[in-house]
């Protein structure tokens, strides 16, 4: 067993999940099964291999250019209300479960 019930609780905390007792038990089982399976990656020596975070680091950009130059096309002028006009407040609030018409409302955060 790589993952204990205590670790599942810790990770659930990090992920803002509560999980029922039954879900926790199942999660211990499932995570161990999946992590056991991914263990095979350790058969590979990757000490000299660079990590790849995303595809567009390498493709779809002008390869004759370097560094930030390569992604020059992705930048835009730093102007107020440039490309993205923001939504009016009522539209931005329309999907919220709770608002006062001006702000999103949430349970009290600060105790005094």
């Amino acid at each position, binding site marked *: 067993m790589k*993952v204990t019930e205590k*670790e*599942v609780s*810790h*990770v*659930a905390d*990090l*992920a*803002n*999940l*509560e*999980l*029922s007792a039954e*879900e926790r038990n*199942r*999660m211990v089982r*499932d*995570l161990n*099964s*999946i*992590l056991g*399976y*991914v*263990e*095979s*990656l*350790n*058969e*590979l020596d*990757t000490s000299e*291999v*660079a*990590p*790849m*975070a*995303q*595809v*567009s680091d*390498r*493709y*779809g*950009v002008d390869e004759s250019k370097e560094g930030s130059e390569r992604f020059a*096309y*992705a930048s*835009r002028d730093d102007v107020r209300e440039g*490309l*993205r006009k923001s*939504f009016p407040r009522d*539209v*931005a609030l*329309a*999907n*919220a*479960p*709770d608002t006062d018409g001006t702000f*999103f409302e*949430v*349970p*009290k*955060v600060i105790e005094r």
Partner: protein
Amino acid sequence: MNLTGLTIDSARSAIAERKTSATALAESFFAKIASDDPKIGAYLMLSQERALAKAAAIDRVAEKGEPLPPLAGVPVGIKDVLVTKGLRTTAGSKILGNYVPPYDSMAVVRLEAAGAVVLGKLNCDEFAMGSSNENSAFHPVHNPRDLTRVPGGSSGGSAAAVAADMAVATLGSDTGGSIRQPASFCGVVGLKPTYGRVSRYGLIAFASSLDHVGCFSKTVKDTAIMLRTIAGRDPMDSTSADVPVPDYAAEIDRPIQGLKVGIAKEYFGEGLESETRGAIEAAIQKLASLGCDIVDVSLPHTKYAIPAYYLVATAEASSNLARFDGVRYGFRAKGGGSLSEMYRRTRDQGFGSEVKRRIMLGTYALSAGYYDAYYLKAQRVRTLLTRDFEEAFKKVDVIVGPTSPTPAFKLGEKVDDPLAMYLADIYTVTANLAGIPGISIPVGANQDRLPVGMQIFGKHFAEGMILRVANAYEKAA
């Protein structure tokens, strides 16, 4: 004329020649959906008002005899992970059960600008996490070819709608095979383009470095038309590539004699069901008879693709899904307590079990003490998997193989075994890690008349090449 059986081309010309109208076409699709979808479950939401308004606008253009745009009056469906302005978008999740987006995703904008008529939103696995469509929070989708079987996933509704004549073409998303595998299970054409080919603006994120927007249709030519419509640079998605978009439909009829078709032995190993193998080998023979050179290639790291994929995908998902907290949109759990308790209850009640499992796995892989061993390791293996393709494509123009190791499985067959479900993606995930384009086309059926799909991979931005090979096969079959 069987209106719901039309392709993009035939639908558009029927409207242009006034043999039918866009309105009649849309209405016949809504009638078909009303009669057949109750047993299939492909649609989560219909958009009659929006569709009929769009169809009426197309009909006014047609009546004046003015030129029609490329998708004029073509009824399409949209996977419910792509946001649609004013039209509920759930990502198949209870946590977005009442979400009405204030904007349209770029792929939808481009389809409608080209004249397409949006019929509604299509069922899928919750947040596109699944290979059977059984993870939808609303209801599963049944495979139109055999209602006791899954349509594949996560874009199960998108594949089933095309297979059952409930849309001419549909949009889907593919993070680890979610377009190609359901296309194969339902016997339709499904394309995952190159990463960056189609804007992800308005796609509800699962794993941003692996998510792709793509399409389903009945023919390769229709897929070529769909791709040209939705592809291209979009300033709203900084990862969309600034690469010119060719007229794919004009390229697909070019001859394929002399093209080098790679076969990777790693895609024909243990686990490949024998009838599927037979159908794929026959299709390869067909390509040889059309003048292609069949060349052996090796993709030696293939067996590490699923483990690398599930670490990278879940790590990114755990970060992307942190935004669902019951504050700005979506569901919020009832009851008192602190802000942090509200977050937890909301996410506990709002997410389904597979989504929670992946958030947990991803959070674990990113957590202190495990980051290097899991997440970083998987990213290094991603480099190796990508290099495999780069090496192979030095020798060949395309690589072909099975899309899935088996045809469509039974509903309920794998729901209790997440690992078995993940293995359904064994031939598809690597293309997402490497960002290369892949298409699945139907290549016959097994004894139970279940469709088998063949996958064709190409180099980055070589969609024209894989469509050409797919089209040549389709014409000859």
